[in-house]
Every structure is written in C-alpha cells, then in structure tokens.
C-alpha cells in the first residue's frame, strides 16, 4: 500500500487489518516508554493547508512514537510564498528528504494530486468534503473494541451536516465495509445530493431512527455555515436533530454515542450526554494515535495490509 487517500483504498480486509495492527500500537502507547524503533530514520512531513491542531498533533505523535522524524508545515499565508502552487510546495518539501507526507487541504482531491507529483507516500488527513480516512479508521477501531471485530448487523445513525462532511463519507464507507447498516440523519439541505457512493439509508426524522440504533454518531454543526441557509437557526437544529438529554434517555443502555469532534456542546449534543458512560468520545481521541501509528507503519514499514 503506497498511499491512504480514501477508505476505498482499503476495503473490508484493509480496514480489518489496520484495526488489528492498531491494537498492537495501542499497547505501545500505554507503556511507560511509549515508543518503538520501527520507523527509525524515516521522516514524516505534515503539510496542513487547513488548520487543525488536533489532527496534526495526533499524526506527529504517532510518527514520533514510531521513532520517525517529523516536519510540520502549516500553510496559512506566511509559510508558502504567495502564488507558489501546491505542486511546487510539495515538491520542495519532498526535496528535503521525506518518506511520507500527511496532507490536509480544503479542496477535495488535493492529496490525490499530490500523490501524482511526489515519490513519497501520501496520507489524506482530510480533503475538503471528500474523505478523512484516518478518522474513519479510528472510529471503526473504537467501535470494534466495544462490539467485536465484525460490525455485521450493527445499526449506526450518523447525524449532522452529512453533505459537507468528509468524516461522514469516510466513516459510512468504513462501517458499511465491516457489515454495519448505516442511516444518515439530517435535514434535507444537509443530506448528500445523491446517494451514489454512500452505502447508507437516509432519514430526516431522528426520533424515528433512535429506537432502532446501536450507535449514534454525531457530526459537528459548524457555526460558520449558519449563513449558508442550510437551516434556520441553531436552536431549531438542536430541537429537531440534537442529541438532547431527553433523547438520550430514550436510548437503550447499550447504545454507544460517538462524535468526530470538536464538540459544540449544547448544539448537536447536550454536555451531560457527552460525559455519560455510553459516550466513547474520549476513547476516540486516544485511539487516534494508535490508528495513525498503524497507518504510518503500514505505509513505511512495509507491513502492507491489502494491496
């Protein structure tokens, strides 16, 4: 496996193998000295055109725990010469001697293009509305640790601004690949324009879906989109689609609550619900490093899961 650009690159086998591998790395991260020399001498560059401290730190930590060296480029306005094309930037960085590049960009397909321009391995850390495969993998890993390696028959509701969410696309693919039944829940303006490429059902009625699910996965509602006329007000969103205390009370005891973070407490999820035992949100974060270690190891340690 040379690049991780999309969950499509992995299929069921690939997702399974990476999750298995992540178990070993989770154990490593829990040691007193959470480090292995596996990628010693390798260099991983994080090239983030879109700001994200959390994801970037998660990748950097993962690389360091594997004894790789890291470089970070936050391409806001200053680090990249005005007018320097994406191609020039990544080729310049590669010339410094890197083995893998982790790319986050606000435009879909940017990592795909980068993969065509450099020799190093490319990991998609989020590209526009397209995909965020490592997030989906850590979500899947978290679910597997609770439910077992197969998600066959698991009923998962993903709630929020699906249409604009790369996490929703990647996670839907990953969950469905492991056999889960995914339902996307959102107001019509936030559902995908077409279900092509989305192995899921859709609903606009959260209350109808909740009694039938095993997992509720919440997406962040972005304040920035308020002016995009997607929904009238945050209050209306919470009323119709928020996981309120009252809705959470109607869930079965064994239902898990997940969130891709960062949370808008009080909008898509009530703070009390976020802290409840059924919520695995903090686990998701902790698992992120182990999963990213598994991804980096697979790309650079030649432990190829599935071609």
């Amino acid at each position, binding site marked *: 496996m040379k690049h991780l650009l999309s969950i499509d690159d992995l299929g069921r086998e690939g997702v399974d193998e990476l999750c298995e591998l992540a178990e070993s790395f989770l154990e490593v991260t829990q040691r007193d000295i959470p480090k292995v020399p596996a990628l010693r001498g390798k260099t991983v560059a994080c090239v983030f055109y879109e700001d994200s401290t959390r994801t970037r730190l998660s990748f950097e930590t993962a690389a360091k725990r594997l004894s790789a060296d890291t470089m970070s480029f936050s391409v806001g306005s200053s680090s990249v010469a005005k007018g320097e*094309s*994406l*191609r020039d930037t990544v080729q310049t960085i590669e010339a410094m001697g890197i083995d893998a590049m982790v790319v986050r*960009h*606000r*435009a*879909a*397909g*940017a990592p*795909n*293009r980068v993969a065509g321009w450099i020799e190093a391995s490319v990991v998609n850390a989020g*590209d*526009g*509305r*397209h*995909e965020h495969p490592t997030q989906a993998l850590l979500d899947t890993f978290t679910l597997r640790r609770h439910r077992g390696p197969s998600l066959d028959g698991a009923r998962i509701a993903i709630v929020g601004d699906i249409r604009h969410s*790369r996490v929703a*696309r990647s996670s839907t693919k990953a969950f469905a690949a492991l056999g889960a039944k995914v339902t996307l829940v959102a107001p019509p303006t936030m559902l*995908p*324009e*077409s*279900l*092509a*490429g*989305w192995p899921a059902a859709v609903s606009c009625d959260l209350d109808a879906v909740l009694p039938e699910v095993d997992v509720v996965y919440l997406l962040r509602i972005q304040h920035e989109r308020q002016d995009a006329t997607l929904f009238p007000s945050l209050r209306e969103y919470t009323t119709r689609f928020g996981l309120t205390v009252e809705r959470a009370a109607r869930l079965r005891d064994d239902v898990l609550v997940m969130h891709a973070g960062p949370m808008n407490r009080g909008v898509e999820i009530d703070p009390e619900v976020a802290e409840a035992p059924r919520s695995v949100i903090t686990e998701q974060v902790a698992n992120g490093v182990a999963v990213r270690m598994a991804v980096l190891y697979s790309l650079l340690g030649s432990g190829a899961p599935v071609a």
Partner: protein
Amino acid sequence: MLRGGRVVDATGERGGDVLVEGDRIVEVGDGLRGDRELDAGGCVVAPGLVDLHVHLREPGMEEAETIETGARAAALGGFTAVVAMPNTTPPHDDPAVVGAVLAKGARASCEVHAAGAITKGREGTELAPMGELHALGVRIFTDDGACVDAAGVMRAALEYAASLPDAVVAQHAEDSTLAAGGHMHEGEWSSRLGIPGRPAAAEDTIVARDCILAALTGTRVHFLHLSSAGAIEQVRAAKARGLPVTAEAAPHHFTLTDESCASFDPAFKVHPPLRGPADVAAVKAGLADGTIDAIATDHAPHPTEAKERPFEEAPPGMLGLETALALTLEELVEPGVLDLPTALARLSWGPAAIAGLVDHGAPIAAGSTANLCVFDPDARWTVVPDALASRARNTPYAGRELRGRVRHTILRGEPVVLDGCATR
C-alpha cells in the same frame, strides 16, 4: 490550386480540383492546372471552419495565449474565422479594446472577430456601449464567462439590441445563485467525490427564461455551450414555436462525462461542467436534428500552473481548437450520428450564418471567397500537449489517438497551413 480532393459544402459532395486566384475561387472541376499545386488527395475540401467561441486571452492573460498563437491554433484546426470572447482584461466593453483586438487580429492566421460585452465590466447591471461596438463590426454580444442573471437586464439588452442590425445576444446559461460554489456537475459523481456541484437546473432555468425573453422581444438569442439535456429540449421546443433562438455545443460536451473528474484532475474542469451520459446523448441528438446549430470549441487556454492546483481551486476551461474537427469526425461522423455534410454544417456554414460572416462557409464555387479547410479524414495522430500550437497545454485529450487532421488551411486565398504546418 488544390488537386484531387473531395469537395463537400452546403450544396453537396463532388470530386474535383479547386483553383484559387487572389482571394477568390475561380473554378472547381476536374483536371485543372494551376501555378502552385497543393496535394489534396484523399482529403475533403470544405469551406473554412468557423468557431463562434474562443478565448484568445489577449489583453490580460498573454502567458496562456495571444491573438497570434490562438489564431495559429485555430488555423491548424481548420478554422478560417473565430469569434473572440469578451472576458479579457480589460473586457470587450470598450471600443478601444475591441479596436485593438481587431487590429491585432488583422495580421493573424485566421480572421479574428470580436464579441462585445452585454454589460459594463460583464458585471450584469449596466448595459455596455453596444452601439459603439456594433459600429466596429461586432455582431455577437455576450458576457460569456458570466451569465446575465437579472432577467430585467437581459430583457433590456435584448430590447436595445433589436435596434442594431444583425445583432445576436449570446448567453452563458448558468444561473449564478444555483451554480455558485459548484465546480463540477451536480450528480452522482459530485456526490462520490465530495466536490460541490453545479446543477443542470442552473442551465435549464436560464435557457427557459431567455427563450421567453426572445419571444417577448423578438431579438435573436444564441445559447453558448449547451450541455444539459433539459436545456436542449427547451431550445427544441422554442424552435418548434418559431422563436429566434440558436445554440452551440462544445466538443467536450459530446465526448466527455463527469466521470472523468474522478481523477480530481482539473483538466476536466469547465463551466458549464461535463455532465452525465444522458446529457452527452442529448447533445449528440441536438446536433443531429439541428436543435444545436453549431459546434463551438469554447477554447479556453490556462497557464499550466493554474491547472496544477486542486480541482476546486483551478480555473475552468479546456483547449479545443486543434482537436475539434477530429473529435467531431470520430465521435459524430464515424458512428453515424451525423453525416459528413451535416458535421461540416455545424462546424462551418452553420456558425458562419449565426455570426453573419458571408465570406465563410459559402459553397465552394467560382466567385466565393477562398476560405477553405482541407483535411484528411483518415490521418491518425496522437494529442501531445507540448506539440500543440496553443501557448497553453490544458487539453483533456492528452495522449488520445485521434483520426482526422487538417492538411491545408486557406485564408482568403493564402495557405496559412501547409501540409499540417502553420506558415505564419
């Protein structure tokens, strides 16, 4: 003199040599003799092709193309006349700019006409000085690149243009409020790729509206680069009702679909976007039954660096002049969608009529101006971006093998392309 070709024009097909003197055709027949003979054996001799829609980028983006390089590319594509779109910097909303373009074009390898802007700055609010531009010879008015969104402004433009003889108002039909933020066709593929879409409805609504305005005002309306089945159906119905509407389609809209965008390569990014197979079929059907009167390339050169950005950040547009004829032959004539004379009608005398160019597309007979395209329909060649005459390289057909190549192009009696090479 062109020896041994097969002459095809609006009057029919016949074998024969074509004798040219000065800028005129003097005789068409067998066994003619001339001082200078050009071999047209195995070739079709047709009236020069006319492209209603090219972006020559001069003034303002000369690193991508100039009038000179664009005209050369046109000549190599068999075109003897092109209409340059007004979205230059500064735009064609000022007689001085248009005058300069026409002056530059006078020395070019094909006849360069200029379209004038409909509104000042192409901003869609105030009318441009259409009268002054008309005086310079401008007949086609468009804000191309931008759509005239406000129905009120479009109506005013149509009403005003009614006072300008032979004026045509051409629309880039894509409602900005529906298409805004979109970069490819809204549909199955935009959903798979996570790229915001431009729905066909953006095109369909404007076409519907402007057909009604054409009926209201009686002014000729021409629809640029139609791509949507729904829009084409509207035009068909409008023509059936006798409305003064015409339409064009670009080769990329009958050869490529939105699936090409799956590679995220902005070589396939264009406005209006590549759409689905049903739309491609509708474009072909429209060309076949005459709903679409012309094939126009929408030749849109861009610097290589600009197309090396991520899909959403790259500018829309593709090259088209040097591949249009071959693509038409391969995808329309060979499979029998159009016969050769109809294909040439769409490429030559059809657009010539819309632009009001009497010297182009005319039947090849004694007395006509010698604007000719001589092409070998069987010649195979591969599209190599670096080998194109255009200054830019953004063709979506890189590496594709095509059949059909221009051998000679005659502009007012002078060979501007000889044996596949430009002479100017």
